[in-house]
């Protein structure tokens, strides 16, 4: 049922009940819904903390890139030769910039990001983590590599190198 069909299609008795004030039965149903959701679909423990960290940016940014994820298991189907390395590919789409980033984890302190920016451009790429920030500059074809990163949550920022014009783009946090 679509929302519009729902609006039109309520039985008269239900539509009439909708005009009544909330009563104790409504309270009781909502109470059970709240308890059920807490059990079935809890808000992730550290989500609030992660959001607060991702917002603690010192600089103004022009755009938030949308994230698209490709599952690591799906990639494993391709037959990665080294099964000890877990990989995951993410794409970040902003208005004038798309980044494709492969996260490889060989060991806890051995996370590597292989990135590819389109259109290819020399940009300053920063990865913000709880432990600190690492940065590099992409080459003219838009490729960049960041190595030796710890596991945990991270956020990328892309910005012009000094002296160049352009806007700063920021991504949501993702798991290294």
């Amino acid at each position, binding site marked *: 049922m679509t929302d519009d069909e729902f609006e039109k299609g309520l039985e008269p008795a239900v539509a009439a009940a909708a005009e009544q004030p909330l009563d104790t039965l409504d309270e009781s*149903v909502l109470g059970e819904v709240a308890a*059920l959701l807490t059990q*079935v679909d809890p808000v992730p423990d550290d*989500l609030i903390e992660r959001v*607060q960290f991702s*917002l603690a940016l010192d600089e103004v940014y022009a755009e938030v890139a949308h994230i*698209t994820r490709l599952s690591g298991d*799906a990639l494993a189907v391709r037959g990665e030769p080294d099964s000890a390395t877990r990989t995951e590919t993410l794409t970040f789409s902003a208005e004038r910039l798309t980044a494709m980033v492969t996260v490889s984890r060989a060991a806890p302190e051995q996370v590597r990001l292989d990135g590819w920016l389109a259109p290819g451009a020399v940009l300053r790429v920063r990865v913000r983590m709880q432990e600190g920030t690492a940065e590099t500059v992409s080459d003219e074809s838009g490729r960049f590599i960041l190595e030796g990163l710890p596991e945990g949550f991270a956020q990328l920022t892309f910005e012009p190198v000094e002296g160049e014009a352009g806007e700063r783009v*920021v991504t949501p946090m993702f798991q290294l």
Partner: protein
Amino acid sequence: MIGTTPSTTSGETLVTQAVAAFSRYQVGDRAAFDGLVEVMTPLLWRTVRGAGLDRVAAEDVVQTVWLTLLRSAATIRDPQSVVGWLLTAARREAWRVSKHSRTDTERTSSVFGVDAEEVMALPEQREPGPEERVVLDERQRRLWEHVQSLPVRCRQLVSVVAAADRPDYAHLATALGMPVGSIGPTRGRCLAKLRDQLSRDPHWAGLWEGVAS
């Protein structure tokens, strides 16, 4: 007890706390934004999950909404409207992600070529349903199914209101596009529909016993 969920000792509701925090932020109190995040993130989570996104995609949407608010905060003149702004942004972004992830994928493929296309074409993982992850009794399982069977906006409203304070019902219903009447909020269509479904469900018959009908 009526209003079984998160009331604060000061008697403030989630909405009044959110509006107060955003007002403080707008006059230069940077730390107040963290308070806003704390109060509103659970409601954004319910809104986005109600749209049917999996947990990982839901986290991305919640983060994107907050980053966008931080960037747009100066354009929101009336702090009273911040809750509506957030819930609307969450609904839109969830919708965009669920409807347009394919478009994003195609665009990425066109940007990066065949190699990317091959990667993108692989199947997505299916998220296990709640009944596969946690043990529910029959009554809970039926309630879950009834809530899931509601139209998206109703599912969002019922799960957001369940997690909020009752005095905020009218405000949240308006923010989610399902207004319930401003002069003394009425039950509204979504709750009326859910009650109707439950009243016909033998597993829920018990709820109606002992309540004068």
